[in-house]
């Protein structure tokens, strides 16, 4: 049994790590801090976290956030709705189709399966700019540019990273279960829905979660495909808010940023375990 003792090395390391942690949170703290200040105090050279007087924090915050939410040209409520529509359709498609493809690549034996898997993995290396122009041309032919469709339809064709991750997960499910199900008269579809999906809920949740974050963050996609302000997503809306004619005051810009960031941070706090486990799993399989 070891007794607790003071170790100078550990203490120094802990302090250093806390300092680093502070450096990483500081930009977000400053964002929130600026977002609750009056414009004059935001644009000042003094470093202070709360507005002066501190008692004005809440009313000032309410004023700033209301101003952002009800801005007449940049309609954040609408952009939130658009983002959620894309996110729902896209997450559903990505999770389902990646799972189906991963099932085919892990539980069914067929000629060319290995080659197909290799091609799927290779697509992870293709930079998006290579696909950008032709996808734009294709969606133009389809008449989809300017609508939300280009942002969620491709998700229904799976994503290489997710297929890869789910395939690894499915491989870990005992084959005997399939055989038992087959004896009970189930086909592939039955096995997929009644055995694989229920057993893979944690992995599917990670795929859904990551894809949700991806959609929420995506900037270049909406920038290319969306042409009307009414169809913008939050990421694009924030950029519009920043760049619109006549400088947007910093305090309002930070309030808008906070609104875009906050849902993801909350999602992280609620689901922290899944995020970290998922990332460790993805990165380690190289």
């Amino acid at each position, binding site marked *: 049994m070891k007794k607790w003792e003071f170790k100078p090395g550990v203490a120094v390391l802990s302090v250093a790590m806390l300092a680093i942690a*502070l450096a990483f*949170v500081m930009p977000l703290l400053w964002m929130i801090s600026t977002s609750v200040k009056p414009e004059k105090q935001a*644009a000042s050279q003094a470093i202070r976290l709360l507005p002066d007087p501190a008692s004005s924090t809440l009313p000032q915050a309410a004023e700033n956030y209301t101003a952002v939410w009800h801005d007449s040209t940049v309609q954040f409520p609408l952009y939130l709705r658009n983002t959620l529509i894309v996110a729902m359709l896209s997450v559903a498609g990505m999770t389902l189709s990646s799972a189906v493809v991963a099932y085919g690549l892990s539980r069914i034996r067929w000629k060319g399966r290995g080659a197909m898997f290799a091609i799927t993995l290779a697509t992870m290396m293709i930079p998006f700019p290579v696909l*950008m122009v032709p996808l734009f041309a294709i969606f133009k032919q389809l008449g989809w540019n300017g609508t939300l469709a280009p942002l969620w339809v491709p998700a229904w064709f799976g994503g290489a990273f997710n297929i890869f991750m789910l395939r690894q997960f499915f491989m870990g499910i005992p084959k005997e279960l399939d055989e038992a199900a087959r004896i009970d008269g189930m086909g592939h579809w039955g096995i997929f829905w009644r055995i694989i999906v229920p057993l893979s809920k944690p992995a599917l949740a990670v795929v859904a979660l990551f894809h949700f974050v991806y959609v929420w963050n995506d900037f270049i996609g909406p920038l290319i495909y969306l042409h009307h302000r009414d169809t913008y997503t939050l990421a694009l809306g924030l950029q519009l808010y920043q760049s619109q*004619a006549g400088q947007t005051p910093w305090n309002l810009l930070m309030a808008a940023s906070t609104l875009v960031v906050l849902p993801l941070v909350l999602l992280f706090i609620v689901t922290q375990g899944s995020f970290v486990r998922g990332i460790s799993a993805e990165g380690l399989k190289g």
Partner: protein
Amino acid sequence: MVFVLLPMGLSLYFSLTDYSLLESPVWVGAGNYRRLMDDPRFWLSVRNTLLFAFVFIPAATALSLVLAVALSGRLRVGKLVQACIFIPTLVPMVATAVVFSWLFNGEYGLVNAGLRAIGLEGPSWLTSRAWAVPALVLLSLWSIGQQVVVYIAAVHEVPAELHEAARLDGMSVVGRFFRVTLPMISPVVLFNVIVLTINTLQVFAQPYILFRTKDGQNDAGLFYTMHLYDNAFVYQQMGYASAMAWIQLVVVLILTAAMWWASRRFVHYRAA
């Protein structure tokens, strides 16, 4: 698949044509590639992107590894610190860029306010030529949390007996990092460096927001994908942009292959 292989083929075809989207493509052979060689903006974007990659990739990898090793021990504050480092990776790139454009603001930004507090006069980061890439590096380092988490998990998988044996042999902490930890996790490092390289060469949203304002473009902040985007969607030169895209693809493939090849001597794969 349809959304990757078909577009790739189309992209290669477009790159050999003159194509404005309004009319059908006109075959020009290698014309676009020849024009690129004489395009100073193209070379500027190549230079900026490579400079950024050469600074950022080693810095990010070294910092992630150091943080991972420090946090993989049993520090009481470890979990808290890890969460703080991870949260920025959730912040949308646009929001990151907007927040950092505020932090890096020459006059009122927090960074320069901090520098002033210790008696230094900070540069005007985003509009200066010399400080544009460093600013982007700092911003990007802020989002390395995913790698740190991956490396922590990798470090945890290194068998404790190896460390024990090395300690008995009298190896220092630094010695154990380079001769035990690093070789054992080298496959993970290689994989993550490759992914990081591919992503870094495509950097777009952050410099687009940081360095392109209504006052114009900071030339030190023109990156490859931004120039490609401009050609495609601002100047409607789809063929020209596709040629740029294919050069990018080939460079990525060569770099990836080169890294695999060069790493054969360093990367240690455990017998499964």
